[in-house]
């Protein structure tokens, strides 16, 4: 077994706890993620996918349980320490890009480096290198509103990668992209995962996108209901298995 970079133990999330409207969105979730894994999280709408990813990545605080990232208990950290921890260890990519609309592409990409107090000259070098990798050099001094959807998502990816995070957290990263941009993004994730050993945890509801992962977790009604390891399966075989499980789950949910 490889090095564990992310672990959740007995994770529970209750919204509006201690009120009449209390709603338990996650029930006793346990998961371990090894270094260099590419994990997919699938499930129907309202199953708790985003709640799950937010609670294991410091974006939200679980009601009960423990979360360890790179061996550190993040729930025991102060709000300020979590801030530092995020830009040093995690890179976030969201469906709606989450870019600062008032700031240039350059300033968006440089955000984690700025927080880390990196020297402006080094920031410039790294941002320009990253922009070149992402084919964004001509857009650096524009506002996000002046860029296409694909360019905006590439900016979000550049920002997530600029500080060389050990884990990338992606919540439906292809949700606002066309098929070509989606495939490019997933190939990039795969490359980072295989060549640089970056761990990726990605939420998706699309079986084809999920087929890029190395392990897939299915969530339903706040529980992890099943898991598939890609292992030695080829991509088609893995995809077929994902489709089979998700369609049987869909049928099951229709019957219930």
């Amino acid at each position, binding site marked *: 077994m490889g090095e564990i970079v992310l672990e959740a133990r007995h994770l529970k999330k209750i919204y509006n706890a201690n009120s009449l409207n209390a709603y338990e969105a996650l029930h006793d979730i346990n998961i371990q993620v090894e270094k260099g894994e590419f994990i997919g999280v699938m499930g129907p709408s309202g199953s708790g996918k985003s709640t799950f990813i937010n609670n294991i990545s410091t974006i939200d605080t679980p009601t009960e349980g423990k979360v360890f990232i790179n061996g550190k208990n993040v729930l025991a950290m102060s709000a300020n320490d979590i801030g530092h921890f995020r830009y040093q260890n995690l890179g976030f990519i969201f469906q709606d890009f989450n870019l600062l609309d008032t700031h240039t592409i*350059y300033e968006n990409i440089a955000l984690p480096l700025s927080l880390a107090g990196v020297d*402006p000259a080094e920031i410039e070098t790294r941002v320009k290198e990253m922009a070149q990798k992402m084919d964004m050099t001509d857009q650096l001094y524009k506002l996000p509103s*002046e860029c296409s959807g694909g360019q905006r998502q590439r900016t979000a990816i550049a920002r997530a990668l600029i500080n060389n995070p050990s884990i990338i957290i992606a919540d439906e990263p292809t949700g606002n992209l066309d098929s070509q941009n989606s495939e490019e993004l997933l190939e990039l994730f795969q490359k980072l995962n295989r060549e640089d050993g970056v761990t990726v945890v990605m939420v998706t509801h699309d079986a084809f996108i999920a087929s890029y992962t190395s392990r897939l977790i299915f969530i339903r009604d706040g529980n992890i209901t099943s898991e598939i390891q890609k292992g030695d399966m080829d991509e088609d075989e893995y995809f077929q298995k994902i489709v089979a499980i998700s369609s049987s789950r869909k049928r099951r949910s229709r019957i219930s």
Partner: protein
Amino acid sequence: MIGKDAIRSLKASKSKALFYCLTFYLTSTLMFLFFNMAESATQGKAEIFVTNNMVDLTKYILNGNMGNIMMVFVVVMCSIDIVFTNDFYVRTKAKELAIRLISGATYTQLLKYLLIQTFLMLVVAIPLGVLSGLALIPLINHILIQQGSDFIITIQSFAIVEYISITLFLVFWTTVLNASFAYKNGAVLMLSDNMKTGANKEKLMGFYSSSFTQILAKIFWIFVALLPIIFSNNGTGGIAVFVIAGCVGLDHVLKEILLPLFSTFTRKRKMHKPVVAYANGFLRQDILVSGITFYLLIADVVVLIAMMFTRNDTPLEKMLVWVSFIFIVILQSMAIMFRLETDLSSRKREFQILDQTGFEEKQIRKVMNREITLFYGFVLFITLFYLSAVYIALIRAGLFTVMNAVVITGVLVMALLGVYILTLSFYRNSFVKKAAL
């Protein structure tokens, strides 16, 4: 049903409604006082239209028809303020309007929904403003008598009619325009926040360009922006015209030179300080979206001061200009605040992103403090920069004392300080708690 929903919506946005009422209250007080002064048949207009010795063209404009010019000027300035206030209120209701559109609301229903809210607020603000105006008239008359004026202000029923007609007209049409904009552009645009920030966002020059033709253009705009300073020694008459031209030049200088240089400076020197770097980015946006409102403040202040000191005013005329000056500075400062807050109200997501990326709550507070402090500091600096041209011209002409400069600057500083505190409180209360997770 629409009426009940409108009242519920009004209750749900109490703080915005309060700002709205406050602006209309101040506008009502000023316009009521102003129309009473100007409409006092014998004491007001008759005195104002006294012909004076004409020195130059501007003096002719200012002196020969001062009552009319002042009337138009004050009405235009108050109108701009009313438009900005109404615009702010309606745009912050974008999401509500979007939901109504999606649910199948017709244009008439949308308009009715907005008009009920705006007119309900006017029903509170206008009588309060008129009452304050009535309370201030004896005080102003007392000062006038002390100054040796032969005339005092008498209450004119027509003044109330004039003010209410103008206000209702403006509020009605601004609301109609906003409702039309909402209806034409549909729910998607409103839900995407563009309704709040204005459909036509300024294009940002994120870097400084130094091609030959652009340098020539930049030199030209610097010259135009400095016109009021360059010609301040040519007497006081032309200063108002030069200041207006200067504002046009300033707009170009800001967008084509200062803001790109500011971006480059931040990128090259300040990126390692996240609070400074990202507050500067927000500040750049604030200046871009609020430009028109502080150009108007500069023009108002300079024109009114030129009016105050370029002629031998009678006590009533002086009082008219001083009252206008104080109220216009307050109202115009509020217009800047409303324009800025319209943009700030769509920043919640930006602060959530900063929070998610690793900004601490105290850093987010610092970003807000720095942004708003620098913004109003910049507005004050740029206004005083142009005002200094008028001060110099008036001192050279022997029409001005240091005390005058202190009082005028004091009024300006106090007004901007007031809106600075209000903006900061609005900004912090709206976002910090929600942005922090």
